[in-house]
């Protein structure tokens, strides 16, 4: 990894607490295990003493939850998250130089460099993404036959839950994590994020959540899918606690990311980086950050309440003891619907960022695009009950939620218009990032059009809770976000790692991915409408040939990711093409910087002179003046 060869940025002073030990992922794991043992076998054991429901059922949630919570705290302490607060409380001077030593080791520590966090996020989320993808393959294997053949029914449901939850958890940070952390400070001309330690925390919570969720496999699984509906979740086996804790952790991470991004963009833009010069990707990050900040706390609350129902014996969601399952449904979807736009919006931003580069035209309708992104973000808080059209809530609310849901097609149609306007008259280059960006629009249109069927309350009666829904959100999330992610990855990989990913392998991956993605998910619309509910391990024998088709196609879809992994290794280690400073001839500010980007990004505070999309504008200045005079800084408003 050549990005490791970052030149030294001055002497690093060793603070006094360094002597306590080198805090890294290893000490984190050790303290995590110690924490689990203390939590489960000491604290949990004492707390659960004499409670028959815990002691005599072979399912001691108290011990397990105490163990997990203390284990998580132990891991974070071992990572060194308490060092700085303690040092400051003991009177040490403030510093940002925490764990900035060089080499590959800093990827396994608490690192306050936003570029390191971005790369940590990239490989971290990809790792869990591949595990969740493997789960999808196992799920499809089960569905080769109309009844159980490979995994038993309980293992199958656990697989479904693991796949769904893991994907939802990882794809929320799939764009915002790697590209948001790595590029937002660069794109706005800042040297760092506003809260670097919180940024590091937001990353390290992700692998913790991933591992906690995976540990459900060893704790008898959980039967609720990614939605975790109460009161099934209150009744469920021990693995449910893993789901609740890991999803709550991701909620905390999301809220932290959102708040960090907002503050960063709001306060740390370089002089001259006016709101209308902000790259559209940063606008998408802002819209997403708002959603994360406002929606994630509701998720944390919902998860905590279920956890209390399970562990402490409250009855928030127990229908015959004064609670209500509707409460959970409302809480969950009040988070859950903004959540799907947390997934979709960064994808919008990425493809709109990529299109101008490869059409060599300004982004068509920039201000409208911003309005569209913010409009989606705003509207997404007013639609959650469309998930509950047949649940038995007040039926008179259905027209309202039907209308608000369909209103979202206006801002999304705006994004399409931006793309169409940008394409018109351009000099279109079919590079790998461009192909992914174009496929995004094809997939997202099908996803959006099927969403109209779901938003329509009468039609939703038949499609709700079926494979139709499942195909719909795979079209928007996988066909949308994951395609945008790969577009962004191919686009920015030369900047992040100084390696140009092989174009031919990239195109091969793209065509496999695109063709078999559609062959996999399009038939699932039919499967759903013909009567196959979601998350079933047994289905009508008449639907077997359709399911078998989908499974076969899904295997090839899975294979397309192998091409990607091969591409990364081939390009990084065998090909070693000399990286060009600006392989795409983009005007973006990030391409003005050297590769790899130095530790503080900018030697001096830059002055922004233009929007990054001024292709074809005669005498357009460079986006950033990297070496401004004092006078230029003052005139730019610095």
């Amino acid at each position: 990894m050549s990005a490791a060869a970052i030149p030294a940025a001055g002497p690093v002073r060793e603070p006094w607490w360094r002597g306590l030990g080198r805090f890294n992922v290893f000490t984190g794991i050790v303290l995590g295990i110690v924490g689990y043992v203390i939590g489960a076998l000491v604290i949990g054991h004492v707390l659960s003493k004499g409670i028959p429901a815990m002691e005599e059922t072979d399912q001691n949630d108290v011990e397990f939850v105490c163990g997990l919570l203390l284990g998580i705290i132990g891991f974070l302490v071992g990572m060194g998250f308490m060092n700085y607060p303690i040092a400051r409380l003991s009177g040490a001077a403030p510093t940002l130089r925490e764990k900035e030593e060089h080499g590959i080791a800093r990827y396994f520590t608490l690192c306050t460099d936003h570029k390191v966090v971005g790369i940590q996020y990239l490989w971290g989320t990809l790792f869990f993404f591949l595990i969740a993808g493997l789960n999808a393959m196992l799920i499809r294997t089960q569905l080769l036959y109309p009844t159980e053949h490979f995994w038993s029914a309980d293992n199958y449901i656990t697989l479904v839950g693991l796949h769904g939850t893991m994907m939802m958890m990882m794809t929320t940070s799939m764009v915002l994590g790697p590209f948001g952390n790595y590029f937002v400070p660069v794109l706005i001309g800042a040297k760092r994020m506003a809260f670097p330690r919180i940024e590091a925390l937001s990353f390290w919570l992700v692998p913790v959540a991933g591992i906690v969720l995976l540990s459900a496999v060893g704790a008898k699984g959980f039967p609720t899918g990614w939605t975790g509906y109460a009161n099934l979740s209150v009744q469920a086996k021990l693995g449910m606690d893993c789901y609740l804790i890991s999803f709550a952790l991701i909620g905390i991470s999301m809220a932290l990311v959102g708040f960090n991004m907002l503050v960063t963009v709001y306060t740390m833009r370089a002089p001259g980086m006016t709101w209308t010069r902000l790259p559209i990707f940063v606008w998408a990050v802002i819209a997403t950050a708002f959603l994360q900040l406002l929606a994630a706390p509701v998720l944390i609350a919902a998860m905590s309440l279920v956890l209390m129902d399970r562990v402490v014996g409250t009855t928030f969601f127990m229908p015959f003891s004064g609670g209500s399952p509707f409460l959970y449904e409302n809480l969950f979807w009040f988070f859950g619907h903004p959540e799907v736009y947390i997934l979709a919006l960064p994808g919008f931003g990425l493809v709109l960022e990529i299109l101008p580069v490869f059409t060599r035209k300004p982004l068509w309708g920039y201000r409208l695009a911003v309005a569209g992104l913010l409009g989606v973000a705003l509207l997404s808080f007013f639609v959650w009950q469309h998930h509950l059209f047949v649940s038995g809530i007040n039926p008179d609310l259905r027209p309202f939620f039907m209308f608000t849901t369909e209103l979202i097609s206006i801002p999304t149609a705006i994004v399409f218009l931006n793309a169409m306007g940008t394409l018109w008259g351009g000099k279109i280059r079919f590079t790998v990032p461009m192909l992914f960006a174009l496929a995004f629009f094809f997939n997202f249109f099908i996803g959006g059009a099927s969403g109209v069927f779901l938003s329509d309350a009468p039609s939703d009666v038949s499609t709700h809770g079926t494979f139709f829904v499942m195909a719909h959100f795979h079209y928007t999330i996988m066909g949308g976000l994951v395609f945008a992610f790969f577009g962004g990855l191919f686009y920015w990989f030369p900047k992040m790692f100084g390696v140009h990913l092989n174009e031919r392998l990239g195109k091969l991956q793209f065509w496999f991915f695109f063709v078999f993605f559609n062959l996999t998910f399009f038939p699932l619309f039919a499967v759903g409408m013909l009567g196959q509910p979601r998350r079933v391990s047994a289905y009508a024998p008449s639907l077997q040939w359709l399911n078998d088709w989908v499974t076969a196609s899904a295997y090839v879809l899975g294979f397309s990711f192998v091409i990607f992994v091969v591409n990364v290794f081939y390009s990084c280690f065998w090909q070693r093409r000399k990286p060009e400073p600006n392989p795409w001839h983009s005007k973006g500010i990030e391409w003005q910087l050297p590769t790899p980007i130095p530790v503080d990004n900018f030697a001096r505070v830059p002055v922004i002179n233009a929007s990054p999309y001024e292709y074809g504008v005669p005498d357009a200045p460079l986006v950033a003046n990297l070496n401004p005079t004092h006078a230029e800084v003052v005139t730019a408003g610095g």
Partner: protein
Amino acid sequence: MSSDDRLKPPPELRRIFWIWLVLSVIAVPLVVIFVGPALPPGSASDAAHGQQQDNTVMVAIVVPIMIGLLLYFIGSLIRFRSKDEVDGLTDGPATAGDPRVMVLWISVTFVIVLFLAAWGAYELFPGEDGAGGGLGSAPISVALPADASSALPVQVIGQQWTWTYRYPTYGGLETTELVLPVNQEVRFSVTSIDVIHSFWAINLAVKADAVPGTTNVAFVKPVREEASTIRCAELCGLWHGHMTSRLRVVSPAAFRVWIAHERAKWAPIQRYLPPYKPTYAPEPTYRG
């Protein structure tokens, strides 16, 4: 597209428009006439028929939009692809956006959205077709079908993991198979005795969540005598995928015969069944 002829759309765009118009004029009637009647959920009940109509309308709207977008994208990708390496590095025109196009585009999407929402809301009034969805425990009069008062009440009880059905007008008879008379409005009261299930009569296009502690009313009028399957559409635990049940729609005479037969069959257990209630909370209800 230079700034001189801004008032007129470029010729390529006009060509795309005409091709789109011709294709759409051909495609939409084909969709309505041939695809519509084949769309799920069929026409075995008034609700199914209404939803099929709804799906037809939406497909008829989506198809021309799809054609238009595909034409535009494919057309412009071919027309504006860069000729070679050098051409690909020259800049295109610096068009930053045309407010008239934006206004037109937003207006068109807004009109479509308004139409869809109005049409969907209209279809929700079950006066003619019904919608088949769960209406909650006490639906108000506007949400009721015209013959709601003469509807046959059937209680659907979900439990882990099977369905049972109670006919309160036939002595609270409880059965494991759902049989309904044809052309008779039915009032389902869906409830659950444990976790959330969702009652899905696929061919009748009825879906109503079975939520414990509450009852969820759904109306439907089956219009065709046939056998079909009932499934659970909300994840409810281990055997969710197996939580099926048989539904038969039969003639009124056959229905009366079946009722008599079932009453005889279930006579031994009948006196142990609880009196008919909208919801049941049997013991145990809590971990203890």
